[in-house]
């Protein structure tokens, strides 16, 4: 049985993040996901195509973690609604739900990168 290669893997997503881009997947059903998968979370199709995601979004929820895990600093994390998909990121600055934020590259703690967002300047 032949099976299509995955359009993007974690390695691709990570490389894009380190190159200051947010890479996701779009299904032929229209659903978009902000992290690599082998199938669409909405419909299960494996007909997925890579796509760049918007780099601005709105804070859906946020919290400031005062007791971090070993290897991390305290700080704010947020679920950011990028429009077609949502993504968890680290926040550089202070935000509230509903605030506009802009992607500001990757932050690496403990070896792996995480997306960073900062408040959008008015």
């Amino acid at each position: 049985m032949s099976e299509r290669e995955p359009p993007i893997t974690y390695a691709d997503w990570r490389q894009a993040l380190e190159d200051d881009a947010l890479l996701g997947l779009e299904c032929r059903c229209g659903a978009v996901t902000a992290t690599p998968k082998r199938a669409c979370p909405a419909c299960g199709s494996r007909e997925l195509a890579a796509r760049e995601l918007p780099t601005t979004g709105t804070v859906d929820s946020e919290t400031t973690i005062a007791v971090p895990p070993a290897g991390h600093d305290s700080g704010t994390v947020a679920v950011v609604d990028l429009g077609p998909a949502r993504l968890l990121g680290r926040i550089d600055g202070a935000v509230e739900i509903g605030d506009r934020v802009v992607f500001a590259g990757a932050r690496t703690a403990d070896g792996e990168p995480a997306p960073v967002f900062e408040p959008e300047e008015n």
Partner: protein
Amino acid sequence: MTRATVVGAGMTEFGQHDRPLTELFADAAIPALADAGVGTDEIDALYFGNAMGGQTETDTHLAPAIGTHLGLGGVPCQRFEDACATSSTAFKQAVEAVEAGVHDTVLVGGVERCTPATGLDTAAMTEVFASATHRQYEQPTGLTFPGVFALFTKRHMHEYGTTEEQLAAVAVKNHRHGKANPYAHFGKDVTVEEVLEGPTVADPFRLLDCCPFSDGASAVVVTNPERAETVAGEPVAVAGVGHRTGTVPLAEKESLTATRPAREAATEAYDQAGVDPDAIDLAEVHDCFTGAEVLATEALGLIEDGRGGPAAAAGRTERGGEIPVNPSGGLKAKGHPIGATGTGQIAELTEQLRGAAGDRQVENATRGVAHNLGGDAATTVVTVMEAVA
């Protein structure tokens, strides 16, 4: 309809225990067997839960060690891991195996050690717990479990107006309930003001909004209804078990406040039992954080959507209230030894539905529900149990 029957339950006190996992589990399993009036030679399998022993105490492949320690001979012994829902998924498998006739009688339970008795401090244990968030798309942000449920809860506060005072009311209630539970890690009178003055862990949660790191074990004996009539232990019926799985990472969930797997698992469990939420007399829910209890009471259909906070503040969920929630004290006060929590809830429902829960007894309790979630609620198991007339 009865799918299977619990005929025995046992628990250690949840708190701090400095002894091996094998010995700690035996201190719940042997009381469960004694309560059931079942000998080890009558146990056909061990379904055993432990979530983090590999990380916390370099201890894996525990099922044969536990089976040997308990003298279970060569019967199949297997370990389950689904984060905080670990022993509930073990319990579900046991119910299904008994119902299908694969086994007549199964010993089910779990054990975990999470306190500094393991040699791990708060930062190290927080990191171990955080390993149940997504390895690539969540852990690198520094997300913690208080953080996960803080994200859900702040969204709930935004959408419904839930307040920090209402969250604190959950902690006050569960600490008060814990006072009446001899198995509980904590139990004391605290005030809303004391909760709100505590140090922040992940806003809006302060220290007393969070369950403790606990050590402990729990076990139950599951058998078929025919066999249940022949053993000494007073039977309690398992009328429904629902189990559903949600999307991870959490940012990709359809809703941050609905806990969809809990809603679907509850519907499945209620349908199996042939009941509606209004037929439930008490609930043991997964209140790892105060906000998690608010979400759970709504997902189970016990409280209207968006009203979980006001319901707690108004006393609707007190023991003696409209729908008692966590009369054991819940994870908040009873404690949360990860792999022991699920069957700990089943042990509590067993005692309540036998009318044997002592000072914490819910009056006229004939049907109860247990809600146990793993990770960011992406694993949720809901169980309906009924007193046997």
